[in-house]
């Protein structure tokens, strides 16, 4: 009789602890996911910029107009490689 009662009590204790863990994990997810998502967003943008093929023309050259001194001069700032 007493053994049964003890078993039941231990079972309800385990159930209670399980519920607590579920609540804690859910709240942790609710906190972590938005933060992680927000901090990873710029990284994802950067990845799409560098990894997606065909996003930019092959062999394209980016130039900028330099205004040092009296003469204006075009300088190559970026050269995308042939992929």
């Amino acid at each position, binding site marked *: 009789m007493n053994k049964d009662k003890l078993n039941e009590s231990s079972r309800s204790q385990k159930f*209670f*602890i399980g519920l*607590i*863990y579920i*609540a*804690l994990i859910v*709240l*942790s997810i*609710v*906190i*972590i*996911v*938005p*933060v992680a*998502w*927000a901090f990873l*967003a710029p990284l994802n943008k950067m990845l799409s910029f560098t990894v997606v093929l065909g996003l930019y023309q092959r062999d394209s050259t980016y130039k900028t107009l330099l205004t040092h001194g009296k003469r204006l001069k075009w300088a190559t700032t970026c050269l995308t490689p042939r992929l």
Partner: protein
Amino acid sequence: METTKGRGRFIFFCLTPAVILFIIFLIIPTIDVFRMSMYKWGGYTDDKTFVGFQNFTKLFHSDKFYQTFQNSVLLIVIVTIVTFAFSLLFASVLTREKLKGQNLFRIIFYIPNILSIVVISAIFSAIYDPNSGLLNSFTNLFRSATETPTLWLGDQKIVIFSLAGAMIWQAIGYYMVMYMASMANIPDSLYESADLEGASRTTQFFSITIPLIWVNIRTTLTFFIISTINMSFLFVMAMTSGGPDGATEVFLSYMYKEAYTNSSYGYGMAIGVVVFLFSFALAAILNAVTKRDNLEY
């Protein structure tokens, strides 16, 4: 006799700088706000006209003010109740139960508090985005593609609750740490004897934990009111700018717009006076209602 005189002089010199700063930066500006609320002034010129209580009369006849009042009170009620319940519950769990990863949970719950309000607003604006937001991506799993996405920050009926969600998310960790600090001071012997008497955990929570941290609870209730009024301004300015159609306009955002955007500085100060009196009265009422005899242990 001379020692007492010297001690008095020492205390006087120690307190004087703080008192002077307090008077210059707190007392005088507060009195000035009350004074300015009786003037009609644009804020940029010397052209001030004394109008008495006209700004207040105008304020109490303004529908917009009642809308802001309603929004602010709704935010105070929702944020206070939900944050209080969650932070108390999780503080109790993390203090009383012996759980694995307890410290990890504490750190995680405190993370929102170390982020600035602008960052949190940016995070939640992205989450509430109707097209690519996390929340709609999740809710889309349970509904058809033809349904229009929920406008979390665009629907007048929902937007205030979206703001409340962000505010609760930000505040839980802070209040949880406060409650945990006072719960840690409760002697274990009280819980042990309650265990021996056969008291359940719920009974222990309501009969031991709550009464013994009551002083802390009272203090935090005042904090809830003040911080919700202040924080709501930051969240509103960063997330909705008071929109859509004034659905998220709160006390301070309305005051700011009237004083600085609308160049009605005197009217803005009248709003400031009403907000000051309202928060003061609410805090006083809460303090009076929650007054109990201090329990010693």
